[in-house]
């Protein structure tokens, strides 16, 4: 199953962490959604978010009318989910697999620092996507333009997100723990 949930960052932190305040946006079978993911997103969630960005939301509380614009802050998911929704390729065993840099897979495990020219940025991302060259898009580790880029205040390359479980807990923290425990 694929589920899309959202939470309101304006709520106090004590409320944000409870399940009652994480809201469902849609629910579908993953195999049904994967066939045309970006189109489906643009017709459902993105359409609603665009309306919220431009028109905002009007609340009537205690007889007073309040109006707020609503903006997407970030997207959180596992690596496969993020690559799917951001329009990157969904294959992690070769090529350019990182969402933040252009270092190839075989050099990622030995590289200790990222040269500035190897970092991805919005200009190069847009340039590659708008060229329409399928081979160039594939070489850059991309697959298609993300529907999220249709939003006014959100671009997938400007708002990278990490997979808390795979990137940090199972990889980075483990590396830090073993590295420093053996060094000490």
């Amino acid at each position: 199953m694929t589920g899309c949930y959202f939470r309101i960052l304006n709520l106090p932190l004590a409320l944000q962490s409870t399940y009652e305040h994480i809201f469902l946006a849609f629910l579908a079978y993953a195999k049904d959604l994967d066939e045309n993911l970006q189109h489906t997103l643009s017709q459902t969630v993105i359409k609603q978010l665009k309306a919220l960005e431009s028109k905002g939301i009007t609340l009537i509380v205690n007889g007073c009318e309040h109006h707020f614009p609503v903006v997407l802050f970030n997207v959180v998911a596992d690596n496969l989910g993020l690559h799917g929704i951001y329009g990157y390729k969904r294959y992690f065993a070769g090529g350019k697999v990182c969402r933040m840099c252009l270092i190839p897979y075989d050099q990622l495990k030995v590289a200790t620092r990222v040269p500035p020219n190897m970092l991805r940025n919005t200009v190069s991302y847009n340039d590659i996507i708008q060229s329409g060259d399928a081979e160039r898009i594939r070489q850059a580790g991309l697959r298609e333009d993300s529907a999220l880029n249709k939003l006014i205040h959100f671009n997938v390359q400007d708002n990278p997100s990490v997979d808390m479980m795979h990137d940090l807990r199972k990889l980075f923290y483990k590396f830090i723990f073993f590295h420093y425990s053996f060094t000490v």
Partner: protein
Amino acid sequence: MLQRFLCPACNHVDLTLQRHRSHVLNTHCDMFHNPPNRFKCKHCTNPKEMVYSMYSRHMRTCSTRNANPPMLQDSADISDNDYNINADDEPTNAAQDMDNEILLRDPSTDIRQVIDNVKELCDTFWINMLSQGIICKSTINEMCNNQRDLVLKTLQVLTYDDVKYQEATMYFKSKWKSSSTEYYRTKTLTESLTFVKPTKFGLNDRIQIEATNDRETIRQRTDCMAQIDIHQTLQTVLQNPDIFNSLQMPSTFYDSTNFNHPFAGTRGKELYEVYTVFRRFTRIISFCRKSEKITLLFNFIGMTMVLQILYKLQLLHSTK
């Protein structure tokens, strides 16, 4: 016999420890400004934050509505510890003989509260059964009817006093009137103000062959996804005055040294700057065009709703 938990502050009776804790947090604690495992009295100016046991003792002396409240009933089961309350914090002086007194003290209020709690439990049970999707509606209806009969039968413990019994029965009937059948239960749910109805969105069309002993039929099926309107959800949640008054705005974190919130990061500050500049510009334009827009636009300052999408993937083990 059912366990009951009595609030030391207001004599509110709950049937489960979880509901009792929810009642304490929602009614007597300043939840929006305190971590959930600490309690702060809402009825006095004492700023001290307390653990549950201290809070319970404090309420006996603080609350003027309950001069000599009975002790709470002990519960060994702390598996539903939603608020990080340790077993050591639980009240240990159980008073089993208070069970009857709770029911007998003030029938007009206590019995109604018990019936309200039972009704809430029954409604939660019904929604849980419906959401599983593996039990047919007629079976769920039978189970709900059975629950209703059991509650009605339980009320017969009050037959020693006809007046109380009649009053409790009448209240029971009024509560169950709107949920006597599956149709009424669904209607009550959909008409409630907090309900946001999911809608279908067609994804793919596919051809499915259905074979019987006599013939094969080709049918066109549409795979759908369920979506819930984000705008409607936001309106439903945020129009609650308590939640609305507790909202935190990006302007609070713009020059703050408090870094434990996403608004304190670069993205939060950028969004705040974009909207502040945009709003100032819009206000000037609006002032030139139509003066009455000023009041409404003035309310925008420093207030931006921000959403964070959680996109989760997981495998479904199909039962087919």
